[in-house]
C-alpha cells in the first residue's frame, strides 16, 4: 500500500491536512504518538479556538473534534501510539516512515509526507535554572495534561516561571481547582502572553506578575521542590544583589517557550532557520532540502492560534496534491525572504513567484506607531501596536512577488 501522503502528527495541522486530502479523493494516513487523535487542543479546555476558521468561539476540545469527527466520517486511516523512528526520502515519489506502535515495527510509505509533529516545550536546562533535581517541577503543558486530561493536581502552592500563554492559562486553572498561585515571574519588561490572558487569568484572581524578575535558585525538601528564590534583574538580565526574596512552594511550572519539534527533519538533512527554529520552506510549505516533504503547524513555526496551524495543514495538503499530480513542484528562480530591522522571523523563507502566499512573521521588540515595510514589493502596513508575542500574517499576491529581486526584505520601521 502506497498512501498519497503520510501525515506525522494528529493535531490541528495534521488533521486539517488529512481532511483536505480525503475530501479531494486522496488517501492519507495519520501517524499519532498519543492514544487518541487531537493533539494539544484536547487539553486546552479554555475558549479562544476557531475564531479565524469557524467564526465561533470554541474550547480546544470542541475545536479539534470538528476535525476528528470529519476524519472518522471520511474513513481516514490512522495509527495511534506510534513512534516515528526514521523518515527516509527514498525517491521523489516515495517517502518511507519507519514506525513502532502496538502493532509492531512497520514501514509506512507515501508519495508525499506532511510533517505536523508540533512543538516541544523548553526545559529548565535550556534556561539554566540551578538547583536540585527535585519532584514538583513541570512544564506548563505537562501540568495541563495532568490536570485537564487526567484530573491530577501537580501542586497546591505554585510558582509559574515565564509568562507565556499556557503558563497564564494554567495559573487560572490552578486557582479554580483550589490551589494557590504565589506569582508569575517574567524576565522581560513585558509579558510574553496575550493581554487577554494577563487580564482574565492573572488580574481576575489577583495573581502577582513579577516583570524583570527571574528564579535564581530552587531548593528541595525530601526530594520535592520547597522554595524558590526570586530576584529582580537589570537590563542585561543579571540579578540585582539585595533584591532577592524567597517563596514557599510545592510546584514550579515552567512556561518558558516552545520550539518546533524538528529532530527527524534535521536527520533528513533539512536546514533549520535560526530565527523560526523551524525548517526552511518555500511557499508550498515544502522543505527546500527534501522535495515532497511538507511542514505545517507548530513544527513549522510557533503559532498563536490553532486556527493558523490548521490553515497551514490545508495549505500543505493542497501542495501535496499538486506534487502528486505533477510528480513534483515546478522549478523556479527562488526569492529569499529576509527578516530586516525589528523583525524576528518570517515564514516561508522562499517565494516562488508562481502563486499567492501567506507570510507569517513576528517583530523582535515592542513597537508603537510603526510600519511593516517590504520595500522590494512596495508594500506598507501600519503597525499601531506590535508586540513580539503577537504573530502577524499577510497575503502576498503572485504579481507582487514577481516584482521582487532575489531578496525580499521584510522590516518594521518606526516613524
Amino acid at each position: 500500500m502506497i498512501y498519497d501522503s503520510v501525515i506525522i502528527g494528529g493535531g490541528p495541522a495534521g488533521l486539517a491536512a488529512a481532511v483536505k486530502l480525503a475530501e479531494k479523493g486522496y488517501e492519507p494516513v495519520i501517524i499519532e504518538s498519543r492514544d487518541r487523535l487531537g493533539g494539544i487542543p484536547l487539553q486546552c479546555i479554555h475558549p479562544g479556538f476557531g475564531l479565524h476558521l469557524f467564526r465561533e468561539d470554541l474550547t480546544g476540545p470542541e475545536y479539534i473534534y470538528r476535525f476528528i469527527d470529519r476524519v472518522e466520517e471520511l474513513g481516514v486511516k490512522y495509527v495511534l501510539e506510534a513512534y516515528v523512528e526514521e523518515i527516509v526520502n527514498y525517491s521523489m515519489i516515495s517517502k518511507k516512515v519507519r514506525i513502532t506502535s502496538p502493532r509492531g515495527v512497520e514501514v509506512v510509505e507515501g508519495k508525499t509526507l506532511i510533517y505536523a509533529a508540533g512543538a516541544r516545550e523548553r526545559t529548565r536546562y535550556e534556561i539554566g535554572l540551578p538547583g536540585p533535581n527535585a519532584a514538583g517541577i513541570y512544564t506548563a503543558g505537562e501540568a495541563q495534561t495532568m490536570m485537564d486530561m487526567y484530573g491530577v493536581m501537580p501542586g497546591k502552592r505554585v510558582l509559574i516561571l515565564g509568562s507565556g500563554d499556557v503558563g497564564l492559562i494554567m495559573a487560572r486553572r490552578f486557582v479554580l481547582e483550589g490551589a494557590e498561585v504565589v506569582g508569575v515571574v517574567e524576565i522581560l519588561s513585558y509579558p510574553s502572553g496575550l493581554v487577554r490572558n494577563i487580564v482574565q487569568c492573572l488580574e481576575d484572581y489577583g495573581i502577582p506578575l513579577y516583570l524583570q524578575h527571574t528564579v535564581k535558585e530552587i531548593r528541595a525538601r525530601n526530594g520535592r521542590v520547597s522554595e524558590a528564590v526570586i530576584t529582580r534583574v537589570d537590563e542585561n538580565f543579571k540579578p540585582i544583589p539585595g533584591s532577592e526574596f524567597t517563596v514557599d512552594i510545592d510546584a514550579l511550572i515552567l512556561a518558558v517557550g516552545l520550539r518546533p519539534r524538528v529532530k527527524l527533519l534535521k536527520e533528513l538533512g533539512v536546514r533549520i532557520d535560526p530565527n523560526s527554529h523551524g525548517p526552511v520552506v518555500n511557499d508550498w510549505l515544502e522543505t527546500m532540502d527534501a522535495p515532497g516533504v511538507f511542514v505545517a503547524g507548530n513544527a513549522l513555526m510557533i503559532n498563536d492560534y490553532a486556527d493558523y496551524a490548521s490553515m497551514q495543514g490545508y495549505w500543505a495538503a493542497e501542495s501535496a496534491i499538486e506534487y502528486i499530480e505533477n510528480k513534483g513542484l515546478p522549478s523556479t528562480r527562488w526569492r529569499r525572504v529576509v527578516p530586516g530591522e525589528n523583525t524576528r522571523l518570517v515564514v516561508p523563507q522562499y517565494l516562488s513567484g508562481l502563486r499567492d502566499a501567506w507570510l507569517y512573521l513576528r517583530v523582535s521588540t515592542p513597537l508603537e506607531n510603526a510600519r511593516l515595510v517590504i520595500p522590494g514589493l512596495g508594500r506598507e502596513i501600519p503597525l499601531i501596536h506590535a508586540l513580539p508575542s503577537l504573530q502577524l500574517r499577510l497575503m502576498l499576491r503572485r504579481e507582487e512577488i514577481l516584482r521582487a529581486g532575489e531578496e525580499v526584505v521584510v522590516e518594521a520601521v518606526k516613524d
Partner: protein
Amino acid sequence: MTEELVITCIICPMGCRIRVLKKNGEVIAVKGYSCPRGREYAVQEATKPLRVLMTVIPCINGDLPVVSVKTNKPIPRDKLLEASKYLASVSVKAPVEIGDVIVENILGLGADIVATRPCRRVKN
C-alpha cells in the same frame, strides 16, 4: 460616593488602560479609550464583568478520568470561584458527548454547565 476603576482593554492587542469613573454605582465618565468597542467593554467590566467558566469534572467509567466542561454563557466574574467550588462535588457517568448538559442553571445564574469533550465508556 465616587470611585475610579482602571480597566485594561482586551478587545485588541493595544491594551488601552481605560479609566471609568462611577458615582453611587452609576458610570459618570469614561476616559482613555481609543474606540467605541473599548468604551463598551470598559463600562461592562466596571459594572458587571462576565466570564465563561471552564473546568474538568470526574467521568466515571470513562476513557479519560475527567471530562472538560464550560458554562454555556458567561456568568458574573465574582461567581467563578463559587461555581468552581460547587462543581468540585459533581461527577458524571460515561458516555458523555460534546454539548451534553451536566448541571442546569448553575447556582441560579441562568447558565448551564455543558461538556466540551466526549468521554467514551470503557468496561470496568
